[in-house]
Protein backbone atom coordinates (compact mmCIF):
# COMPACT_ATOMS: atom_id res chain seq x y z
CA UNK A 1 0.00 0.00 0.00
CA UNK A 2 3.00 2.32 0.24
CA UNK A 3 2.98 3.41 -3.39
CA UNK A 4 -0.51 4.74 -2.75
CA UNK A 5 0.83 7.35 -0.35
CA UNK A 6 2.38 9.20 -3.26
CA UNK A 7 -1.05 10.27 -4.40
CA UNK A 8 -2.70 13.22 -2.71
CA UNK A 9 -3.85 12.14 0.71
CA UNK A 10 -7.05 13.60 2.03
CA UNK A 11 -5.18 14.74 5.14
CA UNK A 12 -3.47 17.24 2.85
CA UNK A 13 -6.77 19.01 2.56
CA UNK A 14 -8.48 20.63 5.55
CA UNK A 15 -11.49 18.70 6.84
CA UNK A 16 -14.82 19.69 5.40
CA UNK A 17 -17.84 19.17 7.56
CA UNK A 18 -21.22 19.09 5.83
CA UNK A 19 -21.95 22.35 7.66
CA UNK A 20 -18.96 24.08 6.17
CA UNK A 21 -19.97 23.00 2.70
CA UNK A 22 -23.41 24.50 3.26
CA UNK A 23 -21.97 27.79 4.49
CA UNK A 24 -19.71 27.95 1.47
CA UNK A 25 -22.64 27.53 -0.86
CA UNK A 26 -24.76 30.00 1.06
CA UNK A 27 -22.16 32.68 0.65
CA UNK A 28 -22.45 32.48 -3.12
CA UNK A 29 -26.14 33.32 -3.04
CA UNK A 30 -26.24 37.11 -3.44
CA UNK A 31 -29.87 37.62 -2.49
CA UNK A 32 -29.35 35.64 0.67
CA UNK A 33 -26.41 37.78 1.71
CA UNK A 34 -28.50 40.87 1.03
CA UNK A 35 -31.17 39.36 3.25
CA UNK A 36 -28.69 38.76 6.04
CA UNK A 37 -27.50 42.36 5.89
CA UNK A 38 -31.03 43.71 5.88
CA UNK A 39 -32.09 41.50 8.76
CA UNK A 40 -29.02 42.45 10.74
CA UNK A 41 -29.97 46.07 10.18
CA UNK A 42 -33.43 45.52 11.58
CA UNK A 43 -32.16 43.55 14.56
CA UNK A 44 -29.53 46.16 15.34
CA UNK A 45 -32.16 48.86 15.12
CA UNK A 46 -34.32 47.03 17.58
CA UNK A 47 -31.54 46.25 20.03
CA UNK A 48 -29.55 49.47 19.91
CA UNK A 49 -32.72 51.51 19.88
CA UNK A 50 -33.87 49.96 23.11
CA UNK A 51 -30.63 50.92 24.78
CA UNK A 52 -30.95 54.52 23.71
CA UNK A 53 -34.65 54.90 24.31
CA UNK A 54 -36.24 53.49 27.43
CA UNK A 55 -39.48 51.56 27.49
CA UNK A 56 -41.07 54.22 29.61
CA UNK A 57 -40.44 56.64 26.78
CA UNK A 58 -42.25 54.39 24.38
CA UNK A 59 -45.29 54.32 26.62
CA UNK A 60 -45.14 58.01 27.54
CA UNK A 61 -48.44 59.65 26.77
CA UNK A 62 -48.19 63.27 25.68
CA UNK A 63 -51.62 64.45 24.65
CA UNK A 64 -50.36 67.76 23.38
CA UNK A 65 -48.15 66.15 20.82
CA UNK A 66 -50.75 63.73 19.60
CA UNK A 67 -51.05 62.84 15.91
CA UNK A 68 -48.06 64.95 14.94
CA UNK A 69 -46.19 64.14 11.73
CA UNK A 70 -42.50 63.10 11.68
CA UNK A 71 -40.25 65.82 13.07
CA UNK A 72 -36.89 66.24 14.69
CA UNK A 73 -38.33 65.50 18.10
CA UNK A 74 -40.42 62.55 16.91
CA UNK A 75 -38.70 61.10 13.82
CA UNK A 76 -41.55 58.68 13.09
CA UNK A 77 -44.30 60.99 14.34
CA UNK A 78 -46.71 60.29 17.23
CA UNK A 79 -49.82 58.18 17.60
CA UNK A 80 -53.34 59.03 18.73
CA UNK A 81 -52.32 59.52 22.35
CA UNK A 82 -49.05 61.24 21.65
CA UNK A 83 -46.71 58.30 22.09
CA UNK A 84 -43.53 58.37 20.04
CA UNK A 85 -43.85 55.95 17.14
CA UNK A 86 -40.11 55.49 16.71
CA UNK A 87 -39.84 54.24 20.26
CA UNK A 88 -42.87 52.03 19.83
CA UNK A 89 -41.54 50.64 16.59
CA UNK A 90 -38.36 49.68 18.41
CA UNK A 91 -40.08 47.98 21.31
CA UNK A 92 -42.80 46.64 19.10
CA UNK A 93 -40.11 45.11 16.94
CA UNK A 94 -38.68 43.29 19.89
CA UNK A 95 -41.98 41.71 20.73
CA UNK A 96 -42.86 40.86 17.16
CA UNK A 97 -39.52 39.21 16.54
CA UNK A 98 -39.60 37.34 19.83
CA UNK A 99 -43.09 36.12 19.08
CA UNK A 100 -41.89 35.01 15.67
CA UNK A 101 -38.96 33.09 17.11
CA UNK A 102 -40.71 31.44 20.02
CA UNK A 103 -43.75 30.46 17.98
CA UNK A 104 -41.42 28.76 15.55
CA UNK A 105 -39.73 26.86 18.36
CA UNK A 106 -43.09 25.41 19.36
CA UNK A 107 -44.03 24.59 15.82
CA UNK A 108 -40.70 22.90 15.09
CA UNK A 109 -40.86 20.76 18.19
CA UNK A 110 -44.40 19.66 17.36
CA UNK A 111 -43.78 19.23 13.65
CA UNK A 112 -40.60 17.21 14.10
CA UNK A 113 -42.08 14.97 16.78
CA UNK A 114 -45.21 14.21 14.83
CA UNK A 115 -43.33 13.72 11.57
CA UNK A 116 -40.61 11.55 13.07
CA UNK A 117 -42.91 9.27 15.05
CA UNK A 118 -45.31 8.96 12.17
CA UNK A 119 -42.63 8.22 9.61
CA UNK A 120 -40.55 5.85 11.71
CA UNK A 121 -43.22 3.69 13.31
CA UNK A 122 -45.67 3.70 10.46
CA UNK A 123 -48.79 1.59 10.57
CA UNK A 124 -51.68 2.58 12.78
CA UNK A 125 -49.83 5.42 14.56
CA UNK A 126 -48.90 6.89 11.23
CA UNK A 127 -52.48 6.72 9.96
CA UNK A 128 -53.93 8.43 13.01
CA UNK A 129 -51.30 11.14 13.22
CA UNK A 130 -51.51 11.91 9.53
CA UNK A 131 -55.29 12.10 9.49
CA UNK A 132 -55.08 14.51 12.42
CA UNK A 133 -52.47 16.58 10.61
CA UNK A 134 -54.59 16.74 7.50
CA UNK A 135 -57.60 17.76 9.57
CA UNK A 136 -55.61 20.61 11.08
CA UNK A 137 -54.48 21.62 7.62
CA UNK A 138 -58.00 21.85 6.38
CA UNK A 139 -59.11 24.31 9.00
CA UNK A 140 -58.40 27.80 7.70
CA UNK A 141 -55.50 28.91 9.82
CA UNK A 142 -56.53 32.52 10.23
CA UNK A 143 -59.91 31.39 11.47
CA UNK A 144 -58.28 29.04 13.95
CA UNK A 145 -55.90 31.74 15.08
CA UNK A 146 -58.67 34.20 15.73
CA UNK A 147 -60.87 31.73 17.58
CA UNK A 148 -58.07 30.44 19.78
CA UNK A 149 -56.81 33.95 20.45
CA UNK A 150 -60.24 35.10 21.47
CA UNK A 151 -60.83 32.01 23.61
CA UNK A 152 -57.60 32.34 25.48
CA UNK A 153 -57.57 36.14 25.71
CA UNK A 154 -57.24 37.45 29.21
CA UNK A 155 -56.58 34.02 30.66
CA UNK A 156 -52.91 34.74 31.28
CA UNK A 157 -52.09 37.75 33.42
CA UNK A 158 -49.44 40.36 32.83
CA UNK A 159 -46.06 39.09 33.88
CA UNK A 160 -42.62 40.52 34.37
CA UNK A 161 -39.52 39.15 32.75
CA UNK A 162 -36.08 40.61 33.04
CA UNK A 163 -37.40 43.71 34.74
CA UNK A 164 -39.97 44.48 32.06
CA UNK A 165 -43.64 43.77 32.09
CA UNK A 166 -45.44 42.05 29.25
CA UNK A 167 -49.09 41.51 28.59
CA UNK A 168 -50.16 37.91 29.05
CA UNK A 169 -51.52 37.97 25.53
CA UNK A 170 -47.96 37.65 24.25
CA UNK A 171 -47.80 34.11 25.61
CA UNK A 172 -51.22 33.38 24.18
CA UNK A 173 -50.24 34.53 20.72
CA UNK A 174 -47.00 32.60 20.78
CA UNK A 175 -48.82 29.40 21.69
CA UNK A 176 -51.61 29.95 19.22
CA UNK A 177 -49.32 30.58 16.27
CA UNK A 178 -47.08 27.71 17.28
CA UNK A 179 -50.00 25.30 17.60
CA UNK A 180 -51.38 26.17 14.19
CA UNK A 181 -48.26 26.14 12.03
CA UNK A 182 -46.55 22.80 12.70
CA UNK A 183 -48.37 20.72 10.09
CA UNK A 184 -46.36 21.60 7.02
CA UNK A 185 -43.12 20.65 8.71
CA UNK A 186 -44.63 17.43 10.06
CA UNK A 187 -45.42 16.30 6.53
CA UNK A 188 -41.97 17.13 5.23
CA UNK A 189 -40.21 15.48 8.15
CA UNK A 190 -42.36 12.39 7.78
CA UNK A 191 -41.53 12.10 4.09
CA UNK A 192 -37.83 12.42 4.78
CA UNK A 193 -37.96 9.95 7.67
CA UNK A 194 -39.77 7.43 5.48
CA UNK A 195 -37.02 7.50 2.91
CA UNK A 196 -34.14 7.75 5.36
CA UNK A 197 -35.22 4.78 7.42
CA UNK A 198 -34.65 2.55 4.39
CA UNK A 199 -31.09 3.82 3.97
CA UNK A 200 -28.35 1.33 4.65
CA UNK A 201 -26.76 3.34 7.42
CA UNK A 202 -29.97 3.02 9.39
CA UNK A 203 -30.05 -0.71 8.72
CA UNK A 204 -26.44 -0.82 9.88
CA UNK A 205 -27.39 0.95 13.11
CA UNK A 206 -30.17 -1.55 13.75
CA UNK A 207 -27.75 -4.35 13.04
CA UNK A 208 -25.40 -2.95 15.67
CA UNK A 209 -28.27 -2.92 18.16
CA UNK A 210 -28.91 0.81 18.45
CA UNK A 211 -32.23 1.67 20.08
CA UNK A 212 -35.09 3.18 18.10
CA UNK A 213 -34.76 6.48 19.95
CA UNK A 214 -31.08 6.68 19.15
CA UNK A 215 -31.76 5.90 15.52
CA UNK A 216 -34.43 8.59 15.20
CA UNK A 217 -32.55 11.34 17.00
CA UNK A 218 -28.92 10.58 16.26
CA UNK A 219 -29.15 9.09 12.77
CA UNK A 220 -32.29 10.14 10.97
CA UNK A 221 -33.12 13.63 12.18
CA UNK A 222 -29.64 15.10 11.65
CA UNK A 223 -30.04 14.09 8.04
CA UNK A 224 -33.28 15.98 7.66
CA UNK A 225 -31.86 19.18 9.11
CA UNK A 226 -32.05 20.91 5.76
CA UNK A 227 -35.83 21.08 5.41
CA UNK A 228 -36.23 21.74 9.12
CA UNK A 229 -33.90 24.73 9.05
CA UNK A 230 -35.36 26.11 5.86
CA UNK A 231 -38.91 25.65 7.11
CA UNK A 232 -38.09 27.20 10.46
CA UNK A 233 -36.53 30.23 8.86
CA UNK A 234 -39.46 30.85 6.56
CA UNK A 235 -41.87 30.28 9.39
CA UNK A 236 -40.38 33.07 11.45
CA UNK A 237 -41.51 35.39 8.70
CA UNK A 238 -44.87 33.67 8.59
CA UNK A 239 -45.31 34.00 12.33
CA UNK A 240 -44.51 37.69 12.27
CA UNK A 241 -47.17 38.16 9.64
CA UNK A 242 -49.66 36.01 11.56
CA UNK A 243 -49.08 38.13 14.62
CA UNK A 244 -49.64 41.24 12.55
CA UNK A 245 -52.95 39.85 11.25
CA UNK A 246 -54.18 38.82 14.62
CA UNK A 247 -53.19 42.04 16.35
CA UNK A 248 -54.57 44.10 13.51
CA UNK A 249 -57.91 42.42 14.10
CA UNK A 250 -57.69 43.39 17.74
CA UNK A 251 -57.44 39.92 19.21
CA UNK A 252 -53.69 39.77 19.43
CA UNK A 253 -51.27 41.37 21.80
CA UNK A 254 -53.02 44.06 23.83
CA UNK A 255 -51.66 47.56 24.45
CA UNK A 256 -49.78 49.09 26.16
CA UNK A 257 -47.33 46.32 25.01
CA UNK A 258 -46.49 47.39 21.50
CA UNK A 259 -46.06 45.08 18.54
CA UNK A 260 -45.82 45.96 14.90
CA UNK A 261 -49.19 44.37 14.42
CA UNK A 262 -51.07 46.34 17.01
CA UNK A 263 -49.39 49.53 15.84
CA UNK A 264 -51.08 48.84 12.53
CA UNK A 265 -54.33 48.27 14.37
CA UNK A 266 -54.10 51.67 16.00
CA UNK A 267 -53.46 53.23 12.62
CA UNK A 268 -56.71 51.85 11.29
CA UNK A 269 -58.76 54.98 11.79
CA UNK A 270 -55.97 57.20 10.56
CA UNK A 271 -55.02 55.47 7.35
CA UNK A 272 -55.19 58.51 5.08
CA UNK A 273 -54.94 61.35 7.53
CA UNK A 274 -51.89 60.21 9.47
CA UNK A 275 -50.11 57.74 7.23
CA UNK A 276 -46.95 57.75 9.32
CA UNK A 277 -48.75 55.69 11.90
CA UNK A 278 -48.87 52.63 9.68
CA UNK A 279 -46.03 53.41 7.31
CA UNK A 280 -43.10 52.80 9.63
CA UNK A 281 -44.28 49.64 11.36
CA UNK A 282 -45.45 48.36 7.98
CA UNK A 283 -42.08 48.99 6.37
CA UNK A 284 -40.34 47.15 9.16
CA UNK A 285 -42.59 44.17 8.77
CA UNK A 286 -41.87 44.25 5.06
CA UNK A 287 -38.10 44.47 5.51
CA UNK A 288 -38.02 41.72 8.08
CA UNK A 289 -40.20 39.30 6.20
CA UNK A 290 -38.48 39.98 2.89
CA UNK A 291 -35.01 39.49 4.30
CA UNK A 292 -36.02 36.27 6.03
CA UNK A 293 -37.46 34.94 2.80
CA UNK A 294 -34.23 35.68 0.93
CA UNK A 295 -32.25 33.97 3.65
CA UNK A 296 -34.60 31.01 3.49
CA UNK A 297 -34.07 30.71 -0.27
CA UNK A 298 -30.33 30.82 0.18
CA UNK A 299 -30.46 28.19 2.89
CA UNK A 300 -32.62 25.94 0.77
CA UNK A 301 -30.09 26.02 -2.05
CA UNK A 302 -27.12 25.73 0.27
CA UNK A 303 -28.45 22.70 2.07
CA UNK A 304 -29.59 20.80 -0.98
CA UNK A 305 -28.40 17.24 -0.27
CA UNK A 306 -26.86 17.09 -3.70
CA UNK A 307 -24.44 19.67 -2.41
CA UNK A 308 -22.56 16.97 -0.51
CA UNK A 309 -20.11 16.52 -3.35
CA UNK A 310 -17.88 13.57 -2.87
CA UNK A 311 -14.28 13.36 -3.86
CA UNK A 312 -14.69 11.13 -6.86
Amino acid at each position, binding site marked *: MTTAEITLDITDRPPLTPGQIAIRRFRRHKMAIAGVILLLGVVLFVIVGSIIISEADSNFIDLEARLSPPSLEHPFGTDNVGRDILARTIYGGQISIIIGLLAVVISIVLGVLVGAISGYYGGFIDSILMRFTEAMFNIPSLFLLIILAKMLAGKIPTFTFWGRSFSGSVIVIICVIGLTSWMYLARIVRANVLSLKEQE*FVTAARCI*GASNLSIIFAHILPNTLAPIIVSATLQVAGSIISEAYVSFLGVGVQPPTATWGNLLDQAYHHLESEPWMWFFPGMFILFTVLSINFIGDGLRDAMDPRALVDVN
Partner: protein
Amino acid sequence: MNESQTLVQVKALKKYFPITEGIIFQRETGSIKAVDDVSFEIKKGETLGLVGESGCGKTTTGRTLIQLYRPTAGDVFFEGINLAETKGKELRALRKHMQMIFQDPYASLNPRWTISRIITEPLRVHNIAKGKASMDKVAELLELVQLNANYMNRYPHEFSGGQRQRVGIARALATMPKFIICDEPISALDVSIQAQIVNLLEDLQEQLGLTYLFIAHDLSMVRHICDRVAVMYLGVIVELADRDELYSNPLHPYTQALLSAVPIPDPRITRARKRIILEGSPPSPENPPTGCRFHPRCPNAKEGCKTETPQWREIKPNHWVCCLDC
Protein backbone atom coordinates in the same frame (compact mmCIF):
# COMPACT_ATOMS: atom_id res chain seq x y z
CA MET B 1 -12.74 -31.89 5.88
CA ASN B 2 -12.11 -32.20 9.59
CA GLU B 3 -14.94 -32.04 12.07
CA SER B 4 -15.62 -28.42 12.80
CA GLN B 5 -18.42 -27.02 14.90
CA THR B 6 -21.52 -25.58 13.43
CA LEU B 7 -21.76 -21.88 14.21
CA VAL B 8 -25.03 -21.05 12.50
CA GLN B 9 -27.87 -23.37 11.66
CA VAL B 10 -30.88 -22.20 9.66
CA LYS B 11 -33.94 -24.47 9.69
CA ALA B 12 -36.97 -24.06 7.44
CA LEU B 13 -36.62 -20.30 7.41
CA LYS B 14 -39.46 -18.32 5.87
CA LYS B 15 -39.91 -14.60 5.39
CA TYR B 16 -43.07 -13.33 3.80
CA PHE B 17 -43.80 -9.64 3.29
CA PRO B 18 -47.51 -8.84 3.43
CA ILE B 19 -49.12 -6.71 0.75
CA THR B 20 -51.72 -4.52 2.39
CA GLU B 21 -54.49 -2.18 1.45
CA GLY B 22 -56.56 0.22 3.50
CA ILE B 23 -56.75 3.81 4.66
CA ILE B 24 -56.62 3.50 8.42
CA PHE B 25 -56.83 -0.21 9.07
CA GLN B 26 -54.60 -2.24 6.77
CA ARG B 27 -55.71 -5.64 5.60
CA GLU B 28 -53.54 -8.24 3.97
CA THR B 29 -54.32 -8.99 0.34
CA GLY B 30 -51.33 -11.13 -0.53
CA SER B 31 -47.72 -11.66 0.35
CA ILE B 32 -44.31 -11.65 -1.22
CA LYS B 33 -42.68 -14.97 -0.37
CA ALA B 34 -39.14 -13.69 -0.39
CA VAL B 35 -37.66 -16.61 1.55
CA ASP B 36 -39.69 -19.77 1.37
CA ASP B 37 -38.29 -22.65 3.41
CA VAL B 38 -34.54 -22.35 3.43
CA SER B 39 -32.20 -24.55 5.48
CA PHE B 40 -28.44 -24.62 5.71
CA GLU B 41 -25.52 -24.70 8.14
CA ILE B 42 -22.43 -22.59 8.43
CA LYS B 43 -19.42 -24.11 10.12
CA LYS B 44 -17.00 -22.16 12.25
CA GLY B 45 -14.24 -20.56 10.20
CA GLU B 46 -15.76 -21.25 6.80
CA THR B 47 -17.08 -18.93 4.12
CA LEU B 48 -20.45 -19.97 2.77
CA GLY B 49 -21.44 -18.32 -0.48
CA LEU B 50 -25.07 -17.53 -1.21
CA VAL B 51 -25.60 -16.69 -4.87
CA GLY B 52 -28.54 -15.95 -7.06
CA GLU B 53 -29.99 -13.24 -9.22
CA SER B 54 -32.05 -10.25 -8.21
CA GLY B 55 -35.27 -11.23 -6.49
CA CYS B 56 -34.08 -14.67 -5.41
CA GLY B 57 -34.16 -13.73 -1.74
CA LYS B 58 -30.50 -13.97 -0.84
CA THR B 59 -30.31 -10.53 0.78
CA THR B 60 -33.56 -11.15 2.62
CA THR B 61 -32.18 -14.47 3.86
CA GLY B 62 -29.13 -12.71 5.24
CA ARG B 63 -31.18 -10.01 6.94
CA THR B 64 -33.69 -12.47 8.37
CA LEU B 65 -30.89 -14.64 9.68
CA ILE B 66 -29.44 -11.75 11.62
CA GLN B 67 -32.93 -10.76 12.77
CA LEU B 68 -33.11 -7.42 11.01
CA TYR B 69 -36.38 -8.87 9.79
CA ARG B 70 -38.14 -11.22 12.16
CA PRO B 71 -38.73 -14.59 10.51
CA THR B 72 -42.27 -15.47 9.49
CA ALA B 73 -41.46 -19.07 10.38
CA GLY B 74 -38.45 -21.27 11.03
CA ASP B 75 -35.46 -21.18 13.36
CA VAL B 76 -32.02 -19.69 13.34
CA PHE B 77 -29.56 -21.21 15.78
CA PHE B 78 -26.45 -19.25 16.62
CA GLU B 79 -24.10 -21.28 18.81
CA GLY B 80 -27.11 -23.22 19.91
CA ILE B 81 -29.32 -20.25 20.82
CA ASN B 82 -32.47 -19.81 18.73
CA LEU B 83 -32.38 -16.21 17.51
CA ALA B 84 -35.91 -16.39 16.19
CA GLU B 85 -37.13 -16.73 19.75
CA THR B 86 -34.84 -14.17 21.31
CA LYS B 87 -35.92 -10.58 21.78
CA GLY B 88 -35.13 -7.29 23.45
CA LYS B 89 -32.04 -7.03 25.61
CA GLU B 90 -31.02 -10.63 25.07
CA LEU B 91 -31.07 -10.23 21.31
CA ARG B 92 -29.22 -6.96 21.52
CA ALA B 93 -26.47 -8.62 23.55
CA LEU B 94 -26.14 -11.34 20.94
CA ARG B 95 -25.69 -8.76 18.22
CA LYS B 96 -22.16 -8.27 19.48
CA HIS B 97 -21.24 -11.59 17.94
CA MET B 98 -22.77 -11.19 14.51
CA GLN B 99 -22.38 -8.21 12.22
CA MET B 100 -22.99 -7.20 8.66
CA ILE B 101 -21.12 -5.47 5.85
CA PHE B 102 -23.31 -3.71 3.33
CA GLN B 103 -23.30 -3.28 -0.39
CA ASP B 104 -23.43 0.45 -0.93
CA PRO B 105 -20.41 2.23 0.54
CA TYR B 106 -22.13 5.54 -0.11
CA ALA B 107 -25.32 4.77 1.76
CA SER B 108 -24.08 2.57 4.58
CA LEU B 109 -22.24 5.33 6.45
CA ASN B 110 -24.15 8.22 8.05
CA PRO B 111 -23.01 11.24 6.03
CA ARG B 112 -23.22 13.53 9.05
CA TRP B 113 -21.06 11.46 11.35
CA THR B 114 -17.28 11.43 11.50
CA ILE B 115 -15.50 8.17 10.81
CA SER B 116 -14.62 7.74 14.45
CA ARG B 117 -18.20 8.24 15.54
CA ILE B 118 -19.34 5.68 12.99
CA ILE B 119 -16.84 3.10 14.15
CA THR B 120 -17.40 3.68 17.85
CA GLU B 121 -21.17 3.37 17.66
CA PRO B 122 -21.07 -0.37 18.38
CA LEU B 123 -18.70 0.31 21.27
CA ARG B 124 -21.15 2.79 22.73
CA VAL B 125 -24.23 0.69 22.19
CA HIS B 126 -22.70 -2.31 23.93
CA ASN B 127 -20.78 -0.32 26.54
CA ILE B 128 -17.49 -1.78 25.49
CA ALA B 129 -15.33 1.32 25.60
CA LYS B 130 -15.60 5.06 26.12
CA GLY B 131 -13.49 8.17 25.75
CA LYS B 132 -9.81 7.61 25.17
CA ALA B 133 -10.12 3.82 25.19
CA SER B 134 -12.58 3.98 22.34
CA MET B 135 -10.37 6.34 20.34
CA ASP B 136 -7.52 3.89 20.74
CA LYS B 137 -9.78 1.14 19.52
CA VAL B 138 -10.70 3.21 16.47
CA ALA B 139 -7.05 3.70 15.60
CA GLU B 140 -6.49 -0.02 16.01
CA LEU B 141 -9.42 -0.90 13.77
CA LEU B 142 -8.46 1.60 11.08
CA GLU B 143 -5.01 0.05 10.99
CA LEU B 144 -6.53 -3.40 10.73
CA VAL B 145 -8.38 -2.35 7.57
CA GLN B 146 -5.33 -0.54 6.23
CA LEU B 147 -6.58 3.00 6.56
CA ASN B 148 -4.59 5.90 7.97
CA ALA B 149 -5.59 6.48 11.61
CA ASN B 150 -5.52 10.25 10.98
CA TYR B 151 -8.71 9.85 9.00
CA MET B 152 -10.67 9.51 12.21
CA ASN B 153 -12.18 12.95 12.22
CA ARG B 154 -13.09 13.12 8.56
CA TYR B 155 -16.49 12.70 7.01
CA PRO B 156 -17.49 9.89 4.65
CA HIS B 157 -17.91 12.15 1.65
CA GLU B 158 -14.18 12.84 1.70
CA PHE B 159 -13.37 9.21 0.93
CA SER B 160 -13.53 6.99 -2.12
CA GLY B 161 -15.86 4.00 -2.40
CA GLY B 162 -13.17 1.49 -1.51
CA GLN B 163 -12.08 3.47 1.53
CA ARG B 164 -15.67 3.80 2.73
CA GLN B 165 -16.11 0.08 2.43
CA ARG B 166 -13.06 -0.37 4.62
CA VAL B 167 -14.68 1.89 7.21
CA GLY B 168 -17.77 -0.28 7.05
CA ILE B 169 -15.60 -3.32 7.68
CA ALA B 170 -13.89 -1.61 10.61
CA ARG B 171 -17.29 -0.84 12.07
CA ALA B 172 -18.35 -4.46 11.71
CA LEU B 173 -15.21 -5.60 13.51
CA ALA B 174 -15.55 -3.19 16.43
CA THR B 175 -17.29 -5.68 18.71
CA MET B 176 -14.98 -8.53 17.69
CA PRO B 177 -17.81 -10.59 16.22
CA LYS B 178 -17.54 -14.28 15.38
CA PHE B 179 -19.78 -14.17 12.35
CA ILE B 180 -20.08 -11.57 9.59
CA ILE B 181 -22.64 -11.47 6.81
CA CYS B 182 -21.12 -9.84 3.74
CA ASP B 183 -24.06 -8.57 1.71
CA GLU B 184 -22.66 -7.96 -1.76
CA PRO B 185 -19.68 -6.10 -0.31
CA ILE B 186 -17.86 -5.55 -3.57
CA SER B 187 -20.60 -5.15 -6.18
CA ALA B 188 -20.56 -1.37 -6.04
CA LEU B 189 -16.78 -1.04 -6.27
CA ASP B 190 -14.43 -0.58 -9.18
CA VAL B 191 -12.73 -3.69 -10.47
CA SER B 192 -9.28 -2.81 -9.19
CA ILE B 193 -10.68 -2.07 -5.75
CA GLN B 194 -12.71 -5.27 -5.55
CA ALA B 195 -9.54 -7.34 -5.36
CA GLN B 196 -8.20 -5.19 -2.52
CA ILE B 197 -11.33 -5.65 -0.45
CA VAL B 198 -11.54 -9.37 -1.12
CA ASN B 199 -7.94 -9.82 -0.05
CA LEU B 200 -8.64 -7.78 3.07
CA LEU B 201 -11.64 -9.93 3.95
CA GLU B 202 -9.60 -13.08 3.50
CA ASP B 203 -6.74 -11.75 5.61
CA LEU B 204 -9.11 -10.71 8.37
CA GLN B 205 -10.74 -14.11 8.33
CA GLU B 206 -7.41 -15.77 8.89
CA GLN B 207 -6.21 -13.27 11.49
CA LEU B 208 -9.38 -13.13 13.53
CA GLY B 209 -10.93 -16.53 12.94
CA LEU B 210 -14.08 -15.12 11.36
CA THR B 211 -16.93 -17.00 9.77
CA TYR B 212 -18.56 -15.44 6.71
CA LEU B 213 -21.82 -15.72 4.87
CA PHE B 214 -20.89 -14.18 1.52
CA ILE B 215 -23.91 -13.02 -0.44
CA ALA B 216 -23.11 -12.09 -4.04
CA HIS B 217 -24.07 -12.40 -7.65
CA ASP B 218 -20.53 -12.29 -9.08
CA LEU B 219 -19.94 -15.99 -9.53
CA SER B 220 -16.25 -15.77 -10.33
CA MET B 221 -15.50 -13.85 -7.14
CA VAL B 222 -17.64 -16.27 -5.15
CA ARG B 223 -15.61 -19.12 -6.51
CA HIS B 224 -12.48 -17.40 -5.33
CA ILE B 225 -13.44 -16.66 -1.77
CA CYS B 226 -15.98 -19.28 -0.70
CA ASP B 227 -15.54 -22.79 0.67
CA ARG B 228 -19.07 -23.93 -0.06
CA VAL B 229 -21.72 -22.35 -2.25
CA ALA B 230 -25.52 -22.33 -2.13
CA VAL B 231 -27.55 -21.27 -5.17
CA MET B 232 -30.91 -19.60 -4.61
CA TYR B 233 -33.82 -19.17 -6.98
CA LEU B 234 -37.10 -17.46 -6.14
CA GLY B 235 -36.90 -17.96 -2.40
CA VAL B 236 -35.48 -21.48 -2.20
CA ILE B 237 -32.03 -23.00 -2.31
CA VAL B 238 -31.77 -25.19 -5.39
CA GLU B 239 -28.25 -26.50 -4.94
CA LEU B 240 -25.58 -26.55 -2.24
CA ALA B 241 -22.13 -28.06 -2.59
CA ASP B 242 -18.43 -27.59 -1.94
CA ARG B 243 -17.04 -24.89 -4.13
CA ASP B 244 -15.01 -26.91 -6.57
CA GLU B 245 -17.72 -29.53 -6.85
CA LEU B 246 -20.42 -26.98 -7.68
CA TYR B 247 -18.41 -25.24 -10.37
CA SER B 248 -17.23 -28.43 -12.05
CA ASN B 249 -20.38 -30.54 -11.68
CA PRO B 250 -23.44 -28.37 -11.35
CA LEU B 251 -26.47 -30.64 -11.19
CA HIS B 252 -29.45 -28.30 -11.07
CA PRO B 253 -30.46 -26.88 -14.49
CA TYR B 254 -30.57 -23.37 -13.03
CA THR B 255 -27.04 -23.64 -11.69
CA GLN B 256 -25.91 -24.94 -15.03
CA ALA B 257 -27.53 -22.04 -16.87
CA LEU B 258 -26.17 -19.55 -14.35
CA LEU B 259 -22.63 -20.81 -14.68
CA SER B 260 -22.79 -20.91 -18.44
CA ALA B 261 -24.05 -17.33 -18.54
CA VAL B 262 -21.02 -15.93 -16.71
CA PRO B 263 -18.72 -14.35 -19.28
CA ILE B 264 -15.08 -15.25 -18.97
CA PRO B 265 -12.29 -12.72 -19.47
CA ASP B 266 -10.68 -14.70 -22.24
CA PRO B 267 -12.07 -14.27 -25.76
CA ARG B 268 -10.98 -17.65 -27.02
CA ILE B 269 -12.69 -19.55 -24.23
CA THR B 270 -15.77 -17.45 -23.90
CA ARG B 271 -16.65 -17.33 -27.59
CA ALA B 272 -16.21 -21.04 -27.97
CA ARG B 273 -18.55 -21.94 -25.13
CA LYS B 274 -22.02 -23.31 -25.65
CA ARG B 275 -24.40 -21.13 -23.77
CA ILE B 276 -27.53 -22.24 -22.02
CA ILE B 277 -29.73 -19.23 -22.56
CA LEU B 278 -32.73 -19.10 -20.25
CA GLU B 279 -35.94 -17.72 -21.66
CA GLY B 280 -37.78 -14.86 -19.99
CA SER B 281 -37.16 -13.51 -16.53
CA PRO B 282 -37.80 -14.82 -13.02
CA PRO B 283 -41.47 -14.66 -12.05
CA SER B 284 -42.65 -12.49 -9.18
CA PRO B 285 -42.19 -13.87 -5.66
CA GLU B 286 -45.79 -12.97 -5.00
CA ASN B 287 -47.05 -15.88 -7.06
CA PRO B 288 -44.35 -18.46 -7.42
CA PRO B 289 -45.04 -21.20 -9.98
CA THR B 290 -46.60 -24.41 -8.68
CA GLY B 291 -44.53 -27.51 -8.22
CA CYS B 292 -40.89 -26.78 -8.98
CA ARG B 293 -40.44 -23.01 -9.09
CA PHE B 294 -38.03 -23.22 -11.95
CA HIS B 295 -40.18 -25.30 -14.29
CA PRO B 296 -41.42 -22.46 -16.58
CA ARG B 297 -37.84 -21.62 -17.57
CA CYS B 298 -36.20 -25.00 -17.22
CA PRO B 299 -34.76 -26.52 -20.41
CA ASN B 300 -35.26 -30.00 -18.93
CA ALA B 301 -38.78 -29.48 -17.61
CA LYS B 302 -41.07 -32.51 -17.69
CA GLU B 303 -44.76 -33.05 -16.97
CA GLY B 304 -44.33 -33.79 -13.28
CA CYS B 305 -42.35 -30.64 -12.60
CA LYS B 306 -45.49 -28.55 -12.75
CA THR B 307 -47.27 -30.36 -9.96
CA GLU B 308 -44.74 -32.06 -7.73
CA THR B 309 -42.54 -30.09 -5.34
CA PRO B 310 -39.00 -31.37 -5.50
CA GLN B 311 -37.32 -32.58 -2.31
CA TRP B 312 -33.98 -31.45 -0.96
CA ARG B 313 -31.70 -34.46 -1.42
CA GLU B 314 -28.02 -35.26 -0.94
CA ILE B 315 -27.22 -36.68 -4.37
CA LYS B 316 -23.50 -37.01 -3.75
CA PRO B 317 -21.60 -36.56 -0.47
CA ASN B 318 -21.99 -32.93 0.57
CA HIS B 319 -23.76 -32.10 -2.68
CA TRP B 320 -27.44 -31.27 -2.19
CA VAL B 321 -29.93 -30.57 -4.95
CA CYS B 322 -33.59 -29.67 -5.07
CA CYS B 323 -34.75 -31.13 -8.38
CA LEU B 324 -37.12 -33.85 -9.54
CA ASP B 325 -34.91 -34.89 -12.39
CA CYS B 326 -31.50 -35.29 -10.77
